[in-house]
């Protein structure tokens, strides 16, 4: 039944403003409107722990980006001499902390070997003598603090003629003694290998089984025992000599600094100075080195960078796939939802460990370890995101504003992306951020267990570093300490940050889970 009312035409002049000549008390709202994100931001900044966590994350990210760029070493750097060095910071030199020293209990023979190294290089290997004691068997021990850098002492190196001349030029220019006189050790085994490089004194036992124990003179000092010659420039040596090498009493007894062999010259170098000559800097590793002689600081930063890259790309890809999948499920509902849910249900139930392993076995040789790991993370990772998005879509799609937009003729795509997505963005962002620590943890665990092998000459990961330090836990705990500390801080910060985000975007959930 139609009920049309005839509206009589009213002429305009019959209308008049009610408040024509009265003051209007209502004011226009002058403050800026606070939108959803502004509101969330305000709430987030009020949460101090989340802000601190965010700053920590930023610091860690900057650490991961900057350190590999500015570090003089890279992941492929492996020192054959400087393995398991203690962390050392030059600012802390002599403080007994973070100075590259390590407390050790050494027997009398080792003690004198260490002292002898210090005597020849002029850098005390023994930083501190705590006490001397005898154990139950009457063997003398020394409790000392040993400088792990100076402890390395000398090395026999085979240099080509060119390198040999360069080294001499460097010595002449800088007036720094690098090459030291060759020792007169009897056993050729010592000259072949490196073990004898530190034995510049008379040995108690000259055989190759020697522990390096010196014969001591009346002042309990080792007795020098160098190779001598009557030719000061033997083997083309024409450079710095140690101070007391002045030709001897007869003016004809000079020390030998190099030995010519088939490939070039064999020299005995003070490795600390040689390192400086090679790399232009004194060896000083802030986090120490690991069992392969890698710089832990650089490796950790490189591993962290890898983890961040992987985690962020996984998070982004999951965000895309899960977002679209969940949107379709939630928006269309019904049979579409039903089928898609079953698929994601099954994927969700596949243990990640198995996926990672299978991908590793199948794809790693074809597309590389990292890419296959990325695939593994993505394959099951998006399911959580999809279900989150789906829930948000179920929540919003019945709202009046969506109906209104639909009535006005908005297309499905417009409804999804313009009207529903912005409202669910908070939840989605929180989910993406909270996924990052999970990825980092899984990656470190998988590489720790050697299920994936992220260790190549120029690549490393936190899990690999942890695994490498495991065997040295009792003797060199610093190798495992720094990666473990890093990942702990990272995990705590990400969780705090994620919780802060969740509270900020979704104040009604505050405290529900913490």
């Amino acid at each position, binding site marked *: 039944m139609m009920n049309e009312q005839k509206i009589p035409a009213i002429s305009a002049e019959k209308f008049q403003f009610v408040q024509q000549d009265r003051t209007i008390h209502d004011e226009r709202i002058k403050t800026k409107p606070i939108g959803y994100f502004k509101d969330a931001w305000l709430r987030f900044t009020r949460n101090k722990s989340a802000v601190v966590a965010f700053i920590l994350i930023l610091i860690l990210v900057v650490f991961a980006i900057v350190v590999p760029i500015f570090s003089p070493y890279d992941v492929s750097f492996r020192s054959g001499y400087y393995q398991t060095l203690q962390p050392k910071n030059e600012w802390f030199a002599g403080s007994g902390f973070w100075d590259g020293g390590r407390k050790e209990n050494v027997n009398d023979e080792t003690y004198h070997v260490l002292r002898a190294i210090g005597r020849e290089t002029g850098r005390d290997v023994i930083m501190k003598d705590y006490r001397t004691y005898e154990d139950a068997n009457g063997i003398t021990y020394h409790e000392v603090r040993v400088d792990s850098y100076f402890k390395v002492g000398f090395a026999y190196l085979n240099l080509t003629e060119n390198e040999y001349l360069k080294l001499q030029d460097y010595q002449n220019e800088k007036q720094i003694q690098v090459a030291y006189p060759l020792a007169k050790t009897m056993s050729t085994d010592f000259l072949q290998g490196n073990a004898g490089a530190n034995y510049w004194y008379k040995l108690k036992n000259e055989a190759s089984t020697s522990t390096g124990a010196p014969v001591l003179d009346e002042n309990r000092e080792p007795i020098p025992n160098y190779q001598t010659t009557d030719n000061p420039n033997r083997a083309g040596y024409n450079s710095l000599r140690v101070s007391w090498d002045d030709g001897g009493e007869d003016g004809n007894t000079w020390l030998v600094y190099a030995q010519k062999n088939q490939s070039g010259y064999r020299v005995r170098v003070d490795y600390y100075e040689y390192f400086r000559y090679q790399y232009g800097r004194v060896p000083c590793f802030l986090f120490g080195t690991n069992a392969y002689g890698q710089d832990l600081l650089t490796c950790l930063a490189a591993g962290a960078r890898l983890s961040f890259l992987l985690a962020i790309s996984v998070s982004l890809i999951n965000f895309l796939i899960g977002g679209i999948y969940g949107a379709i499920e939630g928006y269309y509902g019904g049979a579409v939802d039903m089928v898609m849910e079953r698929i994601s*249900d*099954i994927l969700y*139930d*596949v*243990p990640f*460990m*198995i996926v990672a*392993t*299978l991908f590793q*076995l*199948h794809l790693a040789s074809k597309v590389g370890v990292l890419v296959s790991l990325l695939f593994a993370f993505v394959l099951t990772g998006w399911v959580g995101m999809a279900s989150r998005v789906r829930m948000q879509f179920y929540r919003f799609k019945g709202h009046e504003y969506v109906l209104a937009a639909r009535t006005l003729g908005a297309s499905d795509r417009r409804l999804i992306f313009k009207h529903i997505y912005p409202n669910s963005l908070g939840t989605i962002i929180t989910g993406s951020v909270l996924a990052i*620590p999970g990825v980092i*943890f899984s990656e*470190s*665990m998988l590489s*720790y*267990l*050697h*299920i994936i092998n992220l260790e190549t000459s120029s690549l490393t990961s936190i899990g690999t570093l*942890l695994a490498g330090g*495991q065997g040295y*836990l*009792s003797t060199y*705990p610093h190798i*495992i300490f720094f990666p*473990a500390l890093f*990942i*702990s801080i990272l*995990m*705590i910060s*990400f*969780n*705090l940050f994620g919780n802060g985000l969740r509270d900020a975007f979704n104040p009604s959930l505050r*405290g*529900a*889970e*913490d």
Partner: protein
Amino acid sequence: MGKYIIKRILLMFLTLFIIMTMCFILVKLLPLPAIREMGKDVNLILARREKMGYNRPILVQYYLFLRNIVTDWDWGVGEQMYESLNVWSVMMQKLPYTILVNLYSILLAIPLGIGFGIYAALKKNKWQDHLISTLVMVFISVPSYVYAFLIQYFLCFKLGLFSLQLETLRNAGSLFSWKMFSSMLPAILSLSFGTIANFTRYTRAELSEVLTGDYMLLARTKGLTKAQAISRHALRNAMVVIVPMIMAEFIAILGGSLITENIFGIPGVGSLYITSINVRDYNFFMAMSIFYTFIGLASGIVNDISYGIIDPRIRMGSKK
């Protein structure tokens, strides 16, 4: 309820079947591990592989695999490890270690976790609560292997309280002897930190929500002391969330923790899995994969169903 449970279990087996199929096909697509050329038994191994149907189509192999499981409960034999030993019997040999370590850690975690949770909820927003909540945050976030390292370093090396490796069964006498227990302690402790923190968090969240309920006020008004009201009314309601979690955790302990077993050298199923990957023993890998998938599915179901058993208000399987 019964119908719902049956439906869930059937669905679980369907899911398990699908995952198993995918897994089997993917594993069979891999090249067989190279035969170590020791002696002249290459032909023998090739013949055995032929006999075991390795050269037949994958779907036929899958049929044989399923048939063996269904008829004889035969999961194949080890090829690269535990050679020619039955996969199932090896697994059953390893399982007790995993279960024991995890069981002890949960038994330790339940009273501590719930206790801390109750305490924090009662002291809500006081310093005790803040302290506990902060610690919970830290303990949940820090990966379990970090505790393992800390415990190993401080308790095993520095203080020398525990032995580093697990006692052998022969040394310890039996699995349940004190010697075995004490050598398992480092692993138990490092596993329990995270679980304690988890229990604490949920207990606190649930209980502090329950404590604000009107019926708590009623309980106090009708004359119950605070302790009575909390233990009889609040805790029971809070348990609706906590108990399913604990139940699911009990199932999940079968899976164990790969990394903790690895660090403390526990000869459990976790290390079996890792070895099977490293030496490419596909029979073991297949069985372990199915095992882990099954545990994951089962703990999910237990979690869901126990809600309905504990709290009759929750109707299972009803359409909302």
